[in-house]
């Protein structure tokens, strides 16, 4: 018996959904199906979008032969490997706390530890980019140590600056551009993860491994100047 299902969502998309779980092995299978369908280049397919445990194929129903597309999806889902492929690794500098991390104290209070401990726990782990969404270039990364997995703020901020690093439950992420947001802000990264002017507009993609490296305020200012 297969451990995935094929769903029609409306008449212009089909979805392969694996077990509804946030798990690197499940996500790796979704990415493998996504890669296979992208390389098959079915006419009329607009977008192949990975989620935590799913792949959505958006297509033009008037230009797409849906049956061969579904057959390909099913074959790809059946042979999607359980083992993860080697991921691209990215290290991102973060200046924690102070003016850059207004919620670091609240996360420390949630964890019942010091702010330094929160930083050690956050910067001490390797995170997986499960998917992008919410904002252009926003990567959902996980999973954070359960001790610092503080839930979203009850009142979202009207403006979170680009580069802000936040925690929302088991997820962590970097705001790619200034936007309203409810994540607990613990620091700020001087590197832009989304820049249309850059040669690679999207620094992160699903499957990437990310590590955070704590930097000082002076180093933050230094790299901001270098950027500009």
């Amino acid at each position, binding site marked *: 018996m297969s451990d995935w299902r094929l*769903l*029609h*969502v*409306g*008449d*212009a*998309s089909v*979805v392969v*959904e694996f077990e*509804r*779980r*946030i798990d690197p092995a499940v996500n790796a299978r979704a990415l493998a199906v*996504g890669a296979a369908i992208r390389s098959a280049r079915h006419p009329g397919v*607009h*977008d*192949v*979008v*990975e*989620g*935590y*445990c*799913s792949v*959505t194929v*958006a297509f033009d*129903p*008037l230009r797409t032969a849906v049956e061969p597309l579904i057959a390909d999806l099913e074959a790809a889902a059946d042979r999607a490997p359980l083992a993860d492929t080697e991921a691209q690794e990215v290290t991102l500098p973060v200046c924690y706390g102070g003016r850059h991390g207004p919620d670091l104290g609240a996360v420390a209070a949630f964890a019942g530890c010091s702010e330094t401990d929160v930083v050690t726990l956050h910067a001490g782990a390797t995170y997986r980019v499960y*998917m*992008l*969404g*919410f*904002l*252009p*270039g*926003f*990567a*959902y990364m996980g999973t954070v140590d359960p001790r610092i997995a503080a839930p979203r703020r009850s009142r979202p901020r009207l403006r979170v600056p680009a580069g802000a690093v936040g925690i929302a439950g088991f997820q962590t992420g970097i705001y*790619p*551009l200034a936007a309203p947001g409810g994540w607990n802000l613990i620091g700020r990264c001087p590197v832009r993860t*989304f820049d*249309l002017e850059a040669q690679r*507009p*999207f620094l992160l*993609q*699903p499957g990437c491994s990310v590590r955070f490296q704590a930097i000082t305020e002076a180093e933050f200012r230094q790299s901001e100047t270098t950027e500009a």
Partner: protein
Amino acid sequence: MIHVLQPGLFTTVQDNGRWGYQRFGIPVAGPMDRVSHRLANLIVGNRASCATLEVTLAGPRLEFQRDLRFAVSGAEFELFLDGTPLSMDAAQPVRSGQCLAFGRRQRGARAYVAVAGGIEVPLVLGSRATHVASRMGGFRGRALAAGDVLAVGATVERRARPGRRSMPASGTAGRVRVLPGPDAERFGALGAAVLAAAEYRVGAASDRMGYRLDGPALDQAGPELPSCAVPAGAIQVPPSGEPIILMADRPTSGGYPRIGTVITADIPVLAQMAPADRVAFETCNLETAMQALIAQERALLA
């Protein structure tokens, strides 16, 4: 060039949408009413990829600064060219210096102004569509403002063709067809019955991102879902039970259960609804959805 004398309530540059980058979180945007946008382009002889102006509820006043031809399709507005009434859905030649003014809106919510050659704004990730929330594409990533000057493309593919009405029949009591699923079972038999029988109204907070519906709440049971991609027309139900239909400017992913999805052929019907308009749902199957879409395409190309 087109000089914006008055921008109207919310006028944006739109083309067929920014496809291909949803996996990086880039929203598709594009026209709310795909059919009227295409019709306006067809009437002036543009290729399908050309950008038009999407006009919302109250229209702009535009001065043409070169000779060209244009057409307006979609929601029915009174139109005036230098004060003289003008019909919709027809190619209209203009001389430099002439002025198009939108008057009263009679029916529908969104009209499309196509000019021969298309509205020329820079391509961003392959598209000219405006996504205001991320300040991407279109004219400086925003709705038009008085004083803006828009460039017009040079290339015209075909001769103008005779126009004809084809705004999706909606009025103010639109009926839209829905394919159930994929989370319909969370709402039980009652949820499906409520959705099919109840009449909702388009909420005041509805916009290009989504239509919030006022009406009976839909109760659900089940654990939270991991986020995944969501298509246009998906009817999401947050824990409050008030359905939201995702539209052109939706974020790429969502995590709320989806009781159903409005069929592609009927999204333009929704797009022509304004806040307070009534909307009713009718369940259908994939075959009906496809037949409706093919019939719509035939009518458009006839």
